[in-house]
């Protein structure tokens, strides 16, 4: 520690509730978010296994289905409606409570203040409120499982008219209402989080931590916060309109002459496409909210374990900004099927292709970073490499889908399911695994087991490719998505063996996650004690003990004198220069 300024260290409040439940400490809040996401991912994964099971055994009678869902699975046979509600809840819980929560609110909360040399977020009370509001949103969402009619079936995109007409199906009553309320609460929580992330990044950086010395993780959290801020505000507005259509008799999204359950509805003049525009104006940036923090973690880890600076740091920063900016201009590519003018489709298509430029910059820079490095294949490194692999695979299929002519064919097929699971789902999850293995020592003061971690990595890596690669071929063969049962269609019958294979792969991948959970909870208690800087990394979180003291720097004010990734600097006494090391470390 080279800081001249020493202020009094602060100590954590002593009571259990103030310390662990309603804590104001950004590190505790980050861990709370992490475990909230961990719970959610278990729920989401279980739902996907149920769906995969149903697709290959559509007629199976399962006794406990009947006890779980007495009406929707009478006699133990899952109805198509139940399948759709499982799908809706899988998507919703995964997108909002896992992909949006863990990488940004979880890791971001824990490490943004430490990495920029602050002792906490700018507004600790707001930070606590933000977590508990997210918790409330999750509780309301999960409650939808237990109400009459069950969870909604309109998908995580909640397209009207289905989502706007309470009598349109089971789950479209109270279940859908709870869904909208939960999402509205989540929007509020995200807004609070975004205010904290942005104000902290702009105003709480320590001496010497100029913007261009911030680790790329901080850049991605910052840009993600801006995306969340602008996106969730629009989703909230759209949700209010949807609620009014459902319960106040307005006609924002509902057209005239809708016949539901043999009754003509009173609504008239509304446009379901209006929802799609508002939703996707949020929905597309949401994809980047999920993936950007993973990109940041990947850059950080590739540099650390290649013992090389991030290739093209500046270009990486501008690529992050470029992706964030372009992300708001391409929402129409989710709506090529809506009958939009081919000219609009063309514009959206060109802008979508343009995102390929910053994405390619990032990918090539990642390759440039590891090129010629002295690579240390830790589990964190493996997951970061896995992230790059999945990002490329998922990104390439995006180029197909960005063409209106191809999308018209692919849109309602498994090709899209394969694409977005690869890039938004699994790549982002790999980012979280990478982050977990990299930062676990700092978060819990102990090391994860590397052998178990590597077995877990290889099983998961093979597993997810085995699940999602065949989906692309199914899509090309015309296999529609959202169907719960393929057995009644001749042309789909021949594809059933592929579905069988994918379901087995899903079981395999899910089983591999048991290793992760064992590793996580075992290492928390029994893992090898971690030193302050087990990876010989450069950024500020590695200058403090593991786990860090309550106020992060124990009263010291760090002073930053170096860029974030000064590895293998010629002439330096060791192969890394920490950001707080004295300036003359360069001297040859």
């Amino acid at each position, binding site marked *: 520690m080279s800081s001249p300024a020493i*202020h009094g260290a602060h100590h954590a409040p002593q009571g259990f509730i103030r310390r662990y439940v309603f804590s104001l400490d950004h590190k505790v809040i980050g861990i709370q978010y992490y475990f909230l996401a961990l719970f959610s991912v278990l729920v989401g994964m279980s739902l996907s296994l149920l769906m995969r099971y149903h697709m290959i055994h559509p007629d199976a009678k399962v006794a406990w289905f009947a006890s779980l869902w007495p009406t929707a699975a009478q006699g133990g046979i899952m109805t198509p409606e139940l399948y759709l509600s499982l799908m809706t809840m899988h998507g919703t819980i995964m997108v909002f409570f896992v992909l949006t929560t863990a990488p940004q609110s979880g890791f971001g909360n824990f490490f943004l203040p430490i990495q920029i*040399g602050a002792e906490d977020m700018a507004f600790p009370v707001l930070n606590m409120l933000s977590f508990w509001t997210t918790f409330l949103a999750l509780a309301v969402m999960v409650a939808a499982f237990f109400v009459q009619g069950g969870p909604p079936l309109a998908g995580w995109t909640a397209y009207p008219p289905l989502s706007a007409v309470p009598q349109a199906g089971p789950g479209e009553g109270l279940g859908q209402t709870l869904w909208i309320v939960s999402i509205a609460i989540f929007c509020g929580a995200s807004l609070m989080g975004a205010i904290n992330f942005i104000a902290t990044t*702009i*105003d709480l950086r320590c001496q010497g931590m100029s913007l261009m010395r911030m680790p790329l993780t901080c850049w991605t959290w910052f840009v993600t916060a801006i995306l969340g801020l602008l996106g969730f505000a629009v989703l909230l507005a759209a949700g209010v*309109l949807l609620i009014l259509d459902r319960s106040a*008799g307005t*006609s924002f999204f509902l057209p005239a002459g809708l016949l539901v359950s043999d009754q003509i509805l009173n609504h008239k003049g509304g446009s379901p496409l209006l929802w799609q525009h508002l939703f996707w104006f949020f929905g597309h940036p949401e994809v980047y909210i999920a993936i950007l923090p993973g990109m940041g973690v990947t850059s950080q880890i590739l540099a650390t374990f290649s013992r090389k600076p991030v290739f093209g740091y500046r270009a990486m920063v501008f690529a992050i900004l470029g992706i964030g900016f372009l992300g708001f201009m391409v929402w129409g590519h989710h709506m090529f099927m809506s009958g939009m003018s081919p000219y609009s489709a063309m514009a959206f298509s060109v802008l979508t292709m343009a995102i390929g430029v910053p994405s390619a910059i990032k990918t090539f820079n990642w390759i440039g970073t590891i090129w010629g490095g002295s690579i240390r294949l830790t589990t964190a490194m493996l997951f970061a490499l896995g992230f790059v692999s999945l990002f490329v695979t998922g990104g390439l299929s995006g180029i197909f889908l960005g063409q209106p002519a191809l999308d018209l064919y692919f849109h309602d097929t498994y090709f899209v399911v394969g694409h977005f699971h690869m890039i938004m789902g699994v790549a982002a999850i790999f980012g979280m695994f990478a982050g977990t293995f990299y930062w676990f020592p700092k978060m819990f003061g102990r090391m994860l087991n590397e052998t178990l971690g590597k077995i877990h990595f290889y099983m998961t890596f093979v597993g997810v490719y085995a699940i999602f690669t065949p989906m692309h071929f199914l899509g090309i063969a015309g296999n529609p998505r959202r169907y719960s049962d393929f057995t009644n269609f001749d042309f789909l019958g021949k594809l059933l063996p592929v579905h069988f294979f994918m379901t087995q792969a899903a079981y395999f991948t899910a089983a591999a996650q048991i290793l992760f959970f064992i590793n996580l909870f075992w290492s928390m208690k029994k893992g090898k004690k971690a030193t302050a800087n087990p990876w010989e990394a450069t950024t500020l979180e590695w200058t403090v003990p593991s786990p860090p003291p309550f106020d992060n720097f124990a009263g010291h004010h760090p002073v930053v004198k170096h860029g974030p990734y000064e590895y293998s600097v010629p002439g330096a006494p060791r192969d890394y220069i920490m950001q707080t090391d004295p300036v003359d470390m360069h001297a040859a």
Partner: protein
Amino acid sequence: MPGSVTSDVIKPPAPPRGGGFGGGGGSDGWGSSRRASMTGLFVLLAATTMAFAAFTSAYVVRRGVSNDWIAFPLPRILWVTSAILILSSVLLELARRSLKGGRRTEFNRYWTAGTALGILFLLGQGYAWRELASAGIFVATNPSSSFFYLLTAAHGLHILGGLTALVYVDVEALRLKLGPGKRTAVDVSAVFWHFVDGLWIYLMALFLIWG
């Protein structure tokens, strides 16, 4: 106490040697509560702007997409409430100027008057709703009225939030507890209030031009 995290906003440590800005610009950036509060405020305003931009785009699209839009005359009291709101902003600005000049009693008077006008504005908006309802114009009557109720309600919620802040500052001021540390609260609530004031003028223009 420098950098306390037991309060809502991190307190700034003693000014760094050499002074100037923190934020990595070469001095000690350990938490400037005032700067962070202002940043947080502007971030909040950006989100509010986005939400109302979304409402506006829905408004314009919904108006154009069907031929069922029937305009209705705006309740005349809205002109009065608009004037009240603008006046309240002016009073808050005068209050801030008094505070800068160290004239605390004058500040209290202006701020209290501005807050009172804010409450009056909200009552006036309620009266406008009653007037519409008695004319048989409800939320679901026509998309034009749906949007009118929606936008006035959404704006009213922001007014309510702003009023909470104004009343807080007023109570602190009247109890003579408005120390220098609370100047940030004065500025933040005043800027927020000017924003909702401007937002209302924008909404009036929207109703008049596209209503």
